[in-house]
């Protein structure tokens, strides 16, 4: 059978915020760019982001600046972040948000007509540019419309709208192809008709998002099957920080069919409070030592903060997400949960009904339509949900380049920026900042090539055989393997972990890998979801193995990795990254320790000694003291 073949300079896999921003950049730098995405154009998971994009524009509180944002990001990630990424992110986020406005985005406004900014967990000042609680939709639509604008420009210039940037929608990439060490293309299939497709391209940008579909309770959409993570591994790149998974504290818990759907943090940013079944605002009992001096200790102080931030500390409902999620988990386990197994999140007694509907329109709509709950009149029931993976492809901070020449990654599929825990609002800004950088990195890489690498026919034949295999087998139903993987990860490598359970999970994943080899897809090649799932299983299993192996090795608790057998945070472990790689045949995962590079002097000096002392070793502290004395 014929394989459809295309030649591009840059192929971007994924059409969420990072992918679109990368593609726009590559095209703006004159590269012929393909955007390949599993869903329709404009439907990617970014659309579900609610709260906003964090950028220290200082529109609401003029004390804000990139250094404050940088500090908040490092604290949120418990100092495990790639500090260069955190620096670039904090410095460049305002420009990326303002640029969206010039492309037609309409953010909510301040009284003096600037972009309004809202409070969010872990951010010292109101910092999130937003549109009600549908910021992700605004972001993706703006980028989508920017792509269209560039196509209109190309139509005028070249008579062909798709001359320089083309969207291949409902198209799945199953393999990256290499020539020698370097990327030479990508192979996949059209979901619509099952035809095979091959891209000859010297540069590939991965922007495929996360891995949530390996868990039962998740806020992630079906696309989040860890494709980019797995493609990178199989191409020889490394993944870091895979043990760190963010369980968003507030997902819906009822009805069962919507369990896990996100309830935006804006509910708390705008005044919502968490209560247990005894009516107590329990978060005051869960302020960890490292944050003791930054959070209110009484309800009165916390409430005053919403109107007077200069003289009061934040309420603990706005602690970083990992802290809040663990607290909710503990309350439910202690028997103080709500009837349906969550806790109460109440905004109805905190804001007038009209204000709730104005500020939180999609939450109001979502609860009314899906749960028969009117959030202006009664509290919501919420609980933790698998939301975001901090881990991902190890990249160069400045260019998004992975270890494999020609391979780049940006957004959730990349690792390092958020350390062990991402702050809310730092994802949308991450997509923009590093999407642009990866697009530019790919363009510069292509410019520097002497010759284009050629795709070998052998690698195409192998990719083709792999893609078609499930259709040629009469095997187990892939849905059953998927459901068992989800249960395994949810129960054994979830929010609270220990060595026994993670080991059990690894054994289970090993067995599921065997079963996955035998799954079959009934039906033909036209839009066949059973076949698609059978192929996605490989990716989910590889990624799940990375998560479990790294989780077993890291013997401490930090951010999105909590071990009840190692409950403390270890300064020694802070200096170590766990790096996952695949064996050459892709059948198993290896994990190695790597030393985290020390923070640059001017950056570490942005912190107080007293704060650093909570995170770093005596040896590092001595280096810091020497630096300060210089």
């Amino acid at each position, binding site marked *: 059978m014929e394989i459809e073949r295309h030649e591009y300079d840059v192929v971007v896999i994924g059409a969420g915020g990072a992918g679109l921003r990368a593609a726009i950049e590559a095209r703006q730098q004159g590269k012929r760019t393909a955007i390949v995405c599993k*869903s*329709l*154009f404009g*439907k990617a*998971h970014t*659309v*579900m982001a609610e709260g906003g994009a964090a950028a220290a524009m200082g529109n609401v509180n003029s004390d804000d600046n990139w250094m404050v944002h940088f500090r908040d990001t490092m604290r949120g990630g418990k100092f495990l972040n790639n500090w260069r990424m955190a620096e670039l992110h904090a410095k460049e986020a305002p*420009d990326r948000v*303002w*640029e969206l*406005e*010039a492309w*037609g985005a*309409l953010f*909510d*406004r301040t009284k*003096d*007509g*600037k972009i*309004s900014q809202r409070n969010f967990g872990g951010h010292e000042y109101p910092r999130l540019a937003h*549109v009600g609680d*549908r910021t*992700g*939709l*605004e972001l993706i*639509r703006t980028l989508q*419309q*920017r792509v*269209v*604008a560039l*196509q*209109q420009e190309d139509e005028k210039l070249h008579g062909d*709208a798709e001359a320089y940037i083309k969207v291949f929608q409902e198209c799945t990439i199953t393999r990256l192809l290499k020539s020698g060490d370097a990327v030479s293309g990508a192979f996949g299939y059209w979901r*619509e008709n099952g035809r095979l497709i091959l891209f000859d391209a010297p540069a590939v940008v991965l922007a495929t998002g996360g891995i949530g579909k390996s868990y039962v309770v998740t806020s992630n*959409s*079906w696309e989040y099957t860890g494709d980019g993570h797995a493609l990178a591994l199989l191409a020889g790149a490394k993944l870091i920080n895979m043990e760190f998974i963010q369980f968003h504290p507030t997902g819906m818990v009822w*009805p*069962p*069919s*919507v369990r896990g*759907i*996100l309830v935006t943090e804006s509910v708390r940013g705008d005044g919502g409070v968490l209560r247990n079944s005894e009516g107590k605002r329990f978060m005051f009992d869960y302020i960890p030592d490292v944050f003791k001096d930054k959070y209110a200790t009484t309800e009165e102080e916390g409430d005053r903060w919403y109107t007077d931030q200069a003289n009061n500390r934040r309420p603990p409902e706005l602690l970083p997400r990992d802290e809040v999620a663990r607290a909710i988990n503990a309350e439910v386990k202690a028997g103080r949960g709500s009837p349906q197994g969550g806790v109460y999140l109440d905004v109805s007694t905190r804001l007038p009904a009209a204000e709730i509907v104005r500020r939180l329109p*999609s939450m109001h*709509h*979502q609860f009314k*339509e*899906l*749960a028969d709950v009117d959030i202006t009149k009664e509290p919501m029931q919420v609980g933790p949900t698998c939301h975001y993976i901090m881990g991902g492809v190890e990249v160069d901070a400045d260019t998004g380049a992975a270890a494999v020449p020609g391979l780049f990654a940006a957004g959730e599929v990349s690792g390092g920026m958020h350390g062990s825990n991402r702050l809310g609002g730092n994802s949308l800004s991450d997509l923009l900042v590093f999407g642009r950088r990866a697009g530019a990195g790919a363009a510069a890489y292509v410019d520097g090539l002497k010759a284009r690498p050629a795709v070998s026919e052998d690698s195409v034949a192998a990719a083709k055989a792999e893609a078609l295999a499930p259709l040629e087998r009469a095997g187990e*139903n*892939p*849905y059953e393997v998927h*459901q068992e993987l989800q249960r395994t990860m949810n129960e054994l490598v979830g929010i609270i972990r220990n060595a026994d359970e993670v080991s059990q999970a690894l054994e289970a994943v090993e067995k599921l890998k065997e079963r996955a080899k035998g799954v079959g897809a*009934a*039906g033909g090649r*036209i*839009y*066949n*979801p*059973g*076949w698609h799932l059978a192929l996605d299983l490989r990716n989910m299993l590889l990624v799940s193995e990375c998560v479990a192996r790294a989780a077993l090795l890291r013997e401490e608790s930090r951010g999105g990795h909590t071990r009840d057998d190692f409950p403390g945070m270890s300064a020694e472990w802070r200096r170590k990254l766990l790096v996952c790689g695949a064996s050459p045949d892709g059948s198993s995962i290896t994990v190695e320790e790597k030393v985290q590079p020390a923070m640059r002097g001017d950056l570490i000096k942005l912190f107080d000694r007293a704060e650093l002392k909570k995170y770093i070793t005596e040896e590092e502290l001595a280096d810091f003291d020497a630096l300060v004395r210089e």
Partner: protein
Amino acid sequence: MGYKAKFRVWRGEGGEGKLEDFTVEVNEGEVVLDIIHRLQATQAPDLAVRWNCKAGKCGSCSMEINGKPRLGCMTRMSTFTEDETITVTPMRTFPVIKDLVTDVSFNYQKAREIPSFTPPASVKPGEYRMQQIDVERSQEFRKCIECFMCNNVCHVIRDHEENKTNFAGPRFLMRIAELDMHPYDVADRKDAAQEEHGLGYCNITKCCTEVCPEHIKITDNALIPMKERVVDRKYDPLVWLGSKIFKRSGSGSKG
């Protein structure tokens, strides 16, 4: 709590197909998309359906449920009686690819025909100053999740393939209104709205507004005001008629 529901689902591809009967388990709190997924997992693994977020935010799972265009993820099973047969068919205005999945490329083609946001060259990023009240009209239209159900239900094209060339559909006429009402857009969009994108075909029956899952008042707030902006240059009897029949809100003109 659970019961067995009777479903009739359209199955087919390549221009042929038929309704297929299923009996399937339904549990408390479920939506139609859950039931379609259960059919995939247990009875019909190759049953094609588009979906993404399952939270009413992405607009992927548009389908017709008992003849009415709906998002599968936002249609609760509790809105039907237990003995009711629920018929699920693909959107009618667009060609079927397979089962519940249609070819919606018409919409992407129309999107590309609308000239993009055109700010004045003198304003640099970061210099934009707009009042909340001035952005709210366009913000309402930007709530659109592109489920394309308004274009699906619009009778100008629902049963008139021949009109598709000259008519952008409510979704993209609303996009023109959104840009025309943007405080910084300087393009003149009025003549093109009428002459190239078929605003005059719209006879404000409000089918689009009724079907919108985001409750955007497409007709009252986008299409009628846009018609009024056009009428400065052209006489459109429907605007006159519309102003007599329907109560308007949020209208007004930028000039």
